[in-house]
């Protein structure tokens, strides 16, 4: 008996028994595969070059379902079309030409997704669709890293003179169709949860497809296209907690990265923390990937990685990249900060490749200015001799300017002049030196080092002045990172509430995390992170939205 007969009979059998897992086992395309697949391919090549002949044969061996009898399953037109596409794939495929294989696999996946769309029978091909799309996504990712293979495509696009979608983006779009199908399926229960407490019907596939699409969108750097997906998930998905751990963690990782790339660092940190906490303890690589963004988001929010991470294998080579930045912020050392995020640290390239350098540079600079102001205050403030003094503690902005200028000079390569007396004493300093003023810095003989825009204290070689420093302090006050007000006339920053809040340092320089968390929490409307469904949705599509308690008469005030 030819293997194709055996194959089609088995398929028909699985359809009748409604066995999605056996179907998935038979409808594979990704090696390694049993040798029957090769035989199947050879038979198809030998006997079924003619598509219409193949079509007739499929229809004969895999009969359509009898709509009168719902107990026994069967094929449907969409499935027949898919099955023909599948057999033609095995007839024509040449794994030596991966670009062509991708096109064939794309067509096959599209046919499979169309088969999936059948409202009555489609569900039986869900596992097979996930499997096919997953293979397709992997192949697209692989091809994306092989410009030598995709060059041909680019040339064709050039001829077309139009902005063609990349292969990865096109693949994401195909798979997104399956995702939408699963997400928007009308289910018996409005919340999409079955009696067994699991997602109902095709909704079980939501996050499998979502994760594939997200991976592809991140690969082709079109993350903004994920926006609509997250909005739709927020509205229509059963809670994420009902899905398997691998899907939850992968999804939260991408959701976290999406929020990170949109500068929603609080949402990012929440999603990534949950991904990290739910990740399998032994999956070090995945934990490491999560950790890179988790640490970055937390640092921007004013939370630094603790010593706990020192013993964690996933943090082994990661922590070293971030610690110098944290230390520079702790001390308000702007020079060390510029070095930690610059080429001198040796980490710049790595941080850039990970996609965290620019947010860290721009966001943490705010934090280092806060501690810089705090440091200048610590060094200049004279605690009043009268404990009942009612004068507000102040920071003189001129002091800030002097300190900032000093840092700028050091960055430009200024140095103290060599003291010839000390030189002659073979490095021993005269005791009088203790009482002498340190000499002023002098510019390097070859002229100040030319600094890039972000390498200087404010902008390149611009020497910071009072106007700039006052603007920076005002901005910190506006962001609640400094607590007090500026007296422009006196050129001072005055701290408010020093008495009530346990001293000027606590009052004037509240912990960053407290401030930023409070601000972020005000922005979270219903306590849920956008894109992360934590509670059941009851007002589903097609359902009636209950407006009791929401609708108020016009003009009722609220």
């Amino acid at each position, binding site marked *: 008996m030819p293997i194709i007969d055996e194959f089609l*009979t*088995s398929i028909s059998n699985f359809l009748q028994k409604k066995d999605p897992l056996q179907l998935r*086992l*038979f409808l594979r395309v990704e*090696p*390694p*595969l*049993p*040798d029957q*697949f*090769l*035989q*199947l391919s050879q038979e198809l090549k030998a006997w079924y070059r003619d598509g219409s002949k193949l079509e007739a044969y499929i229809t004969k061996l895999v009969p359509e379902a009898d709509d009168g009898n719902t107990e026994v399953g069967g094929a449907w037109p969409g499935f027949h079309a898919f099955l023909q596409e599948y057999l033609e794939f095995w007839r024509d495929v040449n*794994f*030596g030409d*991966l670009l062509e294989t991708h096109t064939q696999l794309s067509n096959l996946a599209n046919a499979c997704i169309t088969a999936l769309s059948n409202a009555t029978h489609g569900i039986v091909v869900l596992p097979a669709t996930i499997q096919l799309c997953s293979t397709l996504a992997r192949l697209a*990712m692989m091809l994306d*890293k*092989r410009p030598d293979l995709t060059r041909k495509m680019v040339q064709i696009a050039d001829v077309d003179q139009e902005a063609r979608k990349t292969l990865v983006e096109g693949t994401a779009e195909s798979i997104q169709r399956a995702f939408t199908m699963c997400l928007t399926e009308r289910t018996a229960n409005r919340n999409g949860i079955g009696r067994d407490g699991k997602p109902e019907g095709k909704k079980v596939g939501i996050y499998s497809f979502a994760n594939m699409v997200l*991976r592809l969108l991140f690969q082709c750097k079109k993350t903004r296209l994920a926006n609509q997906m997250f909005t739709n998930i927020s509205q229509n998905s059963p809670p994420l907690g009902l899905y*398997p*751990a*691998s899907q939850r*963690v*992968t999804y939260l990782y991408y959701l976290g990265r999406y929020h990170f790339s949109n500068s929603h660092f609080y949402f990012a940190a929440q999603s990534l923390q949950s991904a990290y906490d739910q*990740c*399998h*303890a*032994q999956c070090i690589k*995945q934990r490491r*990937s999560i950790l890179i963004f988790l640490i970055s988001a*937390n640092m921007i929010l004013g*939370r*630094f990685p*603790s010593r*706990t991470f020192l*013993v*964690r294998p996933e943090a082994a080579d990661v922590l070293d990249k971030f610690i110098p930045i944290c230390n520079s912020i*702790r*001390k308000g*050392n702007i*020079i*060390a900060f510029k070095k930690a995020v610059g080429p001198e640290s040796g980490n710049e*390239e790595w941080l850039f*490749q*990970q996609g965290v350098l620019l947010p860290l540079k721009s966001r943490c600079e705010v934090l280092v200015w806060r501690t810089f102001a*705090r*440091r200048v205050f*610590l*060094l*200049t403030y004279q605690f009043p001799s009268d404990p009942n003094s009612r004068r507000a503690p102040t920071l003189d902005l*001129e*002091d800030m300017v*002097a*300190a900032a200028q*000093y840092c700028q000079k050091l960055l430009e390569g200024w140095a103290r002049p060599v003291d010839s007396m000390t030189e002659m004493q073979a490095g021993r300093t005269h005791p009088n030196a203790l009482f002498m*003023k*340190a000499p002023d810095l002098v510019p390097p003989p070859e002229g100040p080092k030319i600094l890039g825009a972000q390498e200087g204290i404010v902008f390149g070689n611009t020497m910071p002045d009072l106007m700039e420093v006052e603007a920076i302090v005002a901005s910190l006050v506006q962001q609640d990172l400094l607590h007090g007000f500026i007296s422009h006339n006196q050129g001072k920053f005055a701290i408010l509430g020093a008495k009530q809040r346990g001293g000027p*340092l606590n009052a004037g320089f509240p912990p960053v*995390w407290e401030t930023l968390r409070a601000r972020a929490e005000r922005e979270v409307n219903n306590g849920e992170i956008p894109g992360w469904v934590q509670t059941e949705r009851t007002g589903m599509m097609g359902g009636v939205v209950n407006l009791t308690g929401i609708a108020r008469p016009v003009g009722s005030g609220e």
Partner: protein
Amino acid sequence: MSAAPASGATSAAKAITTDKNAEPTKDAKPAGALEEDDEFEDFPVENWTQEDTEVPGDNTHLWEESWDDDDTSEDFSAQLKEELKKVEASKKR
């Protein structure tokens, strides 16, 4: 074919695999070798329990929220102090 496809997964499977690997995936490294590990890998298992996620050691104190450093004896502070003294002196003048 009706037998479990796991049986006899030898020669043909290899043939196909070899076909795919015959493409020079390994010898011609893509330009961005650095990009290699920035991808989130698939998990080897589909599901696991809460116990599987537990790592030894302290899990409650992952983040430092209060990290301001009041020590002004280190080098950077000493230099700034020196500089600020000069400003102080010029103010009095």
